[in-house]
């Protein structure tokens, strides 16, 4: 990494001479320190979020380890990066979604929430007091007006809607794989969405999964509530993929 910037990388409010904000770039690196990869895939009537579940220590109660959260009944969030930053962000998202519901009388749509969280993240890149969160968040919802929605937020304050996306250590490999698959078939039904997500993760991590190694969350047209799949349901899909290969 070129050190030609002489001091500009230590402070968030300083641009480097090449016009880069190094602290924001380092925040992206922090996302990868978690060692996990997460994937989100959108189908025609389903959105699926999936991540690895790695319990850092044998003594930890596995029930307390999760990166998949409900932001509201309808919005699901998948966080990748520093766990404590992720937890703080989820709390803030829950608050923002709740405030919106209170003030406006209807459930906060995920694109509005993404924009709000992105704007908040941007202030961390412009003001000295706080550092950026070392977290990338993938949000999903089945919206009444817009249908299935998948958004990704990152430490720089950028947000975007996606057909499929990934974050974490194997982000680039996962995105390459997803691009190829989506090109072949973009309109995926319920089963296909989930299988594509699991397949992508298996492909980039090149490891056989047990149902307890991954967390899968989905939201569908029929059941607009975001919920996690049980181990039996995950096992069902793992078997389908194994048999198909």
């Amino acid at each position, binding site marked *: 990494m070129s050190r030609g910037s002489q001091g500009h*990388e230590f402070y968030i409010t300083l641009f480097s001479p090449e016009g880069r904000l190094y602290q924001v770039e380092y925040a992206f690196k922090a996302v990868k320190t978690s060692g996990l990869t997460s994937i989100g895939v959108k189908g025609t009537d389903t959105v699926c979020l999936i991540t690895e579940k790695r319990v850092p220590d044998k003594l930890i109660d596995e029930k307390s380890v999760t990166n998949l959260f409900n932001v509201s009944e309808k919005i699901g969030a998948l966080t990748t990066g520093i766990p404590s930053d992720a937890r703080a962000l989820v709390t803030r998202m829950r608050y923002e979604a709740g405030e919106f519901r209170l003030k406006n009388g209807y459930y906060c749509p995920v694109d509005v929430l993404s924009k709000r969280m992105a704007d908040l993240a941007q202030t961390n890149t412009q003001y000295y007091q706080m550092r950026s969160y070392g977290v990338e968040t993938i949000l999903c919802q089945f919206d009444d007006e817009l249908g299935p929605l998948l958004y990704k937020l990152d430490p720089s304050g950028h947000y975007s809607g996606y057909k499929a996306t990934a974050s974490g250590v194997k982000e680039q490999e996962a995105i390459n794989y997803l691009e190829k698959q989506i090109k072949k078939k973009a309109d995926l039904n319920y089963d296909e969405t989930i299988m594509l997500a699991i397949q992508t993760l298996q492909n980039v991590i090149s490891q056989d999964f047990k149902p307890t190694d991954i967390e899968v969350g989905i939201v569908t047209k029929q059941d607009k509530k975001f919920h996690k799949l049980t181990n039996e349901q995950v096992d069902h899909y793992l078997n389908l993929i194994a048999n198909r290969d």
Partner: protein
Amino acid sequence: MSGSMYDLSVATYSQEGRIYQVEYATKAVENSETVIGVKCKDGVILAAEKQKFSRLLEDNTNKRIYNIDTQTGMALCGKLPDGRNILQRAKAESSQYQDMYAIPASANVLSDRVAQYVHAYTMYSGARPFGSATFIASYNTFDGYELYMIEPSGNKYAYHACTHGKGRAICKSEFERRSFKDLTCQEALVYIAKMLILAHEEFKEKKYEYEMTWITDNNGRKHQSVPQDLINNAVQQAEQLIEQDQMGE
């Protein structure tokens, strides 16, 4: 590990995306006295070793394990003044929760709030992280016995058994060797005393005392100190066990 300029503020990421100030705060905890939390068959135990660094100190005062409410206890590891700050916050959170919802906060909720408080101090350039890890043990009717540990980074997990401080490696290997889930709290006291004594093997000449508290089926499921005679017995038996192990080698 040199931080060069990246370790001057908690609001600065290093080139690899690490936050050195949080790592240094964790070091402060790792160099301090050992604290253990264990979930047994019929309860939860918190235990801490305390070095008697002066003969003028009163015995069995200067606590490291406190009550947050009748059924919740918190043990402090690391810098005690920092730990006490976190403790005050935990007490306030617990009290406010009870005011609003009329039931005591479950350990899940309480530890989450405390963890986010600790985490907030890892975000601002004007403050430093807490140099203290805290353990929360509690009982409530819905969730049963719970044990959480909150690190200076704001990370929190629920544990079957957890430890921090100088002797954490020794304690962790003992946890893996022995299944505390099958022992009652009374039976577990000896092994806990053994871990704490082994934790300061190199400092044998110094005097230590042990503070233990528990929440068990037998003491009305309240967070209370283990009676001093039980602690003394456990320590004696533990010392014998250690002697036997050493003679066996």
